[in-house]
């Protein structure tokens, strides 16, 4: 998850990734946000929830309803929402900056390719491996494979959580990337035709505005009118249901691009305190409210607001990140947080298959121990993946030039190259050991 956001981008579009180093601030003209460590924390929270879920099977049973464990449900949900807010912010920031200056943020297809090269290889390899292991005879459940490889499992009530359950959020993310790629040219076009900065701001806010409106309308209809059951997964885990979270991040991006800053330490502290208080309230109420009613889904909007208050001090005050976010182990975990997230469920299932994760009487301690085991294995797998799969796969982007066109590797030869007449040949028995 390595990328930087140019302060005055000439060509590089935004990417929903944060800085690999913790220090928020400016380096070489590029503003860097230490958001990866936050994502790492969120990913590990999701891991703990899934271990809890895996060990208890039915988390509504009394033994699973003890206070610390019940809160995992809320923390996990809020963590995933946080991912979406961060993605909305980072992906839209470059577009917002360029738009405010009345120019294009670059090639939409290249932006999309960047996302694909960064995220899809590990996603696809994991899906293929898990599907290959769990389907022992061809053709297997091929529909599941096709849906996952095309990131369309979120439309399936049956297969959405198959093969790699947490991967649903990646499918949602990709829907968002495609949407942004589609609106990028229009946004740039409109911003270029609006003279005032205020007008451009409105243009830029229109996209998250529409997105939020559609998402809220969908949630409102599902909760209040259709009263869709909470077990109808495509309704609650689809892209439209999560659109308000992305929109929240996009609005933050527009204001950040406009130069909104929290200059005083007091303001930042207030933001964190309010965010923490809101999170505590959400935690307490969310964990105690009935989770099997559609109204419970409304809590995600509260999590989105809490995300703004938590992220605000970081994104509106670049250069003032808490030192904890620059702590090297946390920075390392941040750099591999995507791998941790994608790999943790297959790792957990493997550990369970080996009998390492199924205690006779699960409780808080077994969940913590299981979490340590799964997290450790997932961190190791993510580190390996980062080195041998994700890093090399990013090289795919090198086939494009900065403007998104096909890269010419031999510009110095293009002018020189002319078909040469075939020379008279002399058989050459041997030459050098080319390797």
């Amino acid at each position, binding site marked *: 998850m390595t990328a930087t956001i140019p302060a005055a981008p000439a060509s590089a579009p935004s990417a929903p990734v944060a800085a690999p180093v913790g220090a928020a601030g400016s380096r070489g003209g590029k503003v860097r946000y230490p958001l990866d460590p936050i994502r790492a924390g969120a990913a590990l929270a999701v891991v703990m929830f899934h271990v809890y879920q895996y060990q208890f099977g039915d988390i509504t049973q009394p033994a699973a309803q003890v206070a610390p464990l019940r809160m995992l449900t809320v923390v996990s949900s809020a963590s995933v929402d946080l991912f979406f807010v961060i993605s909305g912010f980072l992906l839209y920031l470059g577009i917002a900056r360029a738009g405010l200056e009345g120019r294009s943020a670059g090639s939409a297809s290249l932006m999309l390719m960047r996302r694909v090269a960064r995220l899809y290889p590990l996603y696809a390899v994991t899906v293929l491996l898990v599907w290959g*292991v769990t*389907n022992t005879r061809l053709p297997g459940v091929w529909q599941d494979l096709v849906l996952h490889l095309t990131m369309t499992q979120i439309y399936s009530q049956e297969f959405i959580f198959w093969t790699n359950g947490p991967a649903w959020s990646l499918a949602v993310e990709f829907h968002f990337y495609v949407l942004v790629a589609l609106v990028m040219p229009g946004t740039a076009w409109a911003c270029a035709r609006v003279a005032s900065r205020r007008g451009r701001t409105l243009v830029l806010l229109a996209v998250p505005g529409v997105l939020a409106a559609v998402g809220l309308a969908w949630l409102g209809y599902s909760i209040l009118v259709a009263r869709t059951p909470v077990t109808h997964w495509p309704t609650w885990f689809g892209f439209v249901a999560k659109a308000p979270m992305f929109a929240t991040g996009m609005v933050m991006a527009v204001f950040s691009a406009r130069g909104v800053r929290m200059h005083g330490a007091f303001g930042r502290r207030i933001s964190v305190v309010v965010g923490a208080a809101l999170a505590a309230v959400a935690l307490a109420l969310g964990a105690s409210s009935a989770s099997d009613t559609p109204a419970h889904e409304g809590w995600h909007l509260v999590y989105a607001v809490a995300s703004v208050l938590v992220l605000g001090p970081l994104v509106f005050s670049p250069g003032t990140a808490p030192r904890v976010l620059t702590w090297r182990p946390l920075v390392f975990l941040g750099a591999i947080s995507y791998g941790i997230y994608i790999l943790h469920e297959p790792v957990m299932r493997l550990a369970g298959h080996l009998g390492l994760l199924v205690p006779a009487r699960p409780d808080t301690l077994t969940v913590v121990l299981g979490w340590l085991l799964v997290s450790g294995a997932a961190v190791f797998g993510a580190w390996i993946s980062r080195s041998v799969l994700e890093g090399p796969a990013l090289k795919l982007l090198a*086939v494009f030039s900065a403007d998104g066109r096909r890269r010419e590797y031999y510009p110095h030869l*293009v002018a020189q190259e002319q078909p040469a007449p075939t020379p008279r040949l002399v058989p050459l028995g041997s*030459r050098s050991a080319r390797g």
Partner: protein
Amino acid sequence: MALLDRAFGVPVDETTHPGTRRAFARKRVVAVMAVSDRDEHFRVRDLRLRDALVEAVLDRIAGELTAGELVSMDAERGALVLELPTARPSAVRHRLNHLARHVARDPLPIGDGTRHALDVGVGWDVVVGPAAPALDPIFAAAHDAVRQRDLDAKQFRDPRRFWSGLRTVGSQIAASYAIALLVPFALLVGLNLLGLDLGPAAYWFAVATLAVTSALMWSESLFALDPPQPPDEPEGPAPRASAVIAAYLPNESETIVETLRHFLAQDYSGRLQVLLAYNTPHRLPVEDDLTALAATDPRLQLLRVHDSTSKAQNVNAALRHVTGEFVGIFDADHHPMPGAFDRARRWLAGGYDVVQGHCVIRNGDESALTRLVAVEFEQIYAVSHPGRSVQHGFGIFGGSNGYWRTSALRELRMRGSRLTEDIDISIRAVGSGLRIASDPGLVSLELAPVTIRSLWSQRLRWAQGWFQVSATSVSAQVVNPLLTTRQKLGMFALLGWREAMPWFATLPLPVMAYLFWRDGAVSLSSPLFLLTTLYTVLAGPVQALTAWRLAVPRLRTHPRWFAFYAVMTILVYSEAKNVAARVAQLKHLRGERQWVVTPRADGPRHAAPRSPRRVKVLR
């Protein structure tokens, strides 16, 4: 060794380290350091001068001796005889190489005040007992080493021939398949009959080895997509540069003049010296043309290396005449692109010691075979070399279209005793901390082999040369403290894994056969089996696709060539190269083409001639 003292008449005390205690009955190393009887222009030196030079060498070497080492002079044969304590062969060789380099580093002063650049060579062997060792073979080894000019000590070895029944290539191919297919099958069946079923373990082992190899290929392709770019143009005037073109003239007489004209037309910013270092068994008409060409352009120098039988010898001989700060090494059919030397200079000024360019086939449209080789060269030079240079943290010198800092090449020298002297010098360079870059943008055009026989012969020699280097280097390089962890892993992949894989590539077949024997049927409907098979099989075509994307413009316009290559790779070519690698290893183990000094029954003993093809065809 008393005989030595008497025979050579040099007081031992003058040339022996003070701490030496001689025990005549012990096992020891005896080495001969011979001095070339010709000067750098291949004029024969008179005997008085030769003796004076040997004495000067003796003086220079005496100060370098350590405890237990002794040197004497054989005035009759114009050489020094050294006695060293026994040690590991690699340590002995290292020590003797150090002494040879010490002698050859600077011109030697002699009594009349003149200074002389000198080629020396060292032969050695382990001797047991008090009797004077049979020195003749060691002298022969030393004189061969002089001709190589690689400052690499040669150990005398009795000719070895293992598996005398495997003389023909056909029998060697059959043997390689027997080892690769029948041995694993028989082993699995035998163990099963003894109650041990290793089928599943063998299956997963085969899958794992193929998966790792494929992963390396995929990763190599991906890294190649973003090759390192040359550093910025250095400031200041361009230094002198040299191009050394090595040629076996009978093979190259039709193209060499055109090649030289191409080099003389190079537009290098500094002064460019073009040096043709060639050997020929007899005078050829084209030499008149070459002389005439040299007369018209002072930048061109001709050097006939009279005692050469290899490219390495030609290059080593040329090094004495190189005036450039950096030197490009080329085969006789190469046409480097305009501006090649300026681009190479950027790398060398940017902290690299060597930069390997991109060799592009210029006769690809000649036949299906040349098309195949043309695409393969793109895969090698546009994908594998740059990809590996990132993956492993070091590049490889490919023998031609490579540019060296002259001082580094002078220090390392090319070893004619290696079938692939380019790989050998690459590994030694990287192992000693030098940096080799790979630049696919540094293009030179060359010709491909036009017959299957010559292609097979070429690949067999490459494979055997790689194995020769691997066998002698892998264990030292993977623990070389000068290398980073990435580089050590790269060395293991390049010299260890790469050599083992041709034997593992066919492993799925005996394993499947065993499973069939065991169960009466084999299920091929496992999705995981299908996926891993696809992953493995597609690695080659993916490299072909990458090669097309990264190919030079003149080849990129032929996508069908790349599709043809991809299909051929899956069907034939990949396995053909595996067969060549396996056969090459068998040949090496049999001692074929191994450096051998064969003592003769009468007259002075000489280095045994190598196989005719080796002598005839200059790499």
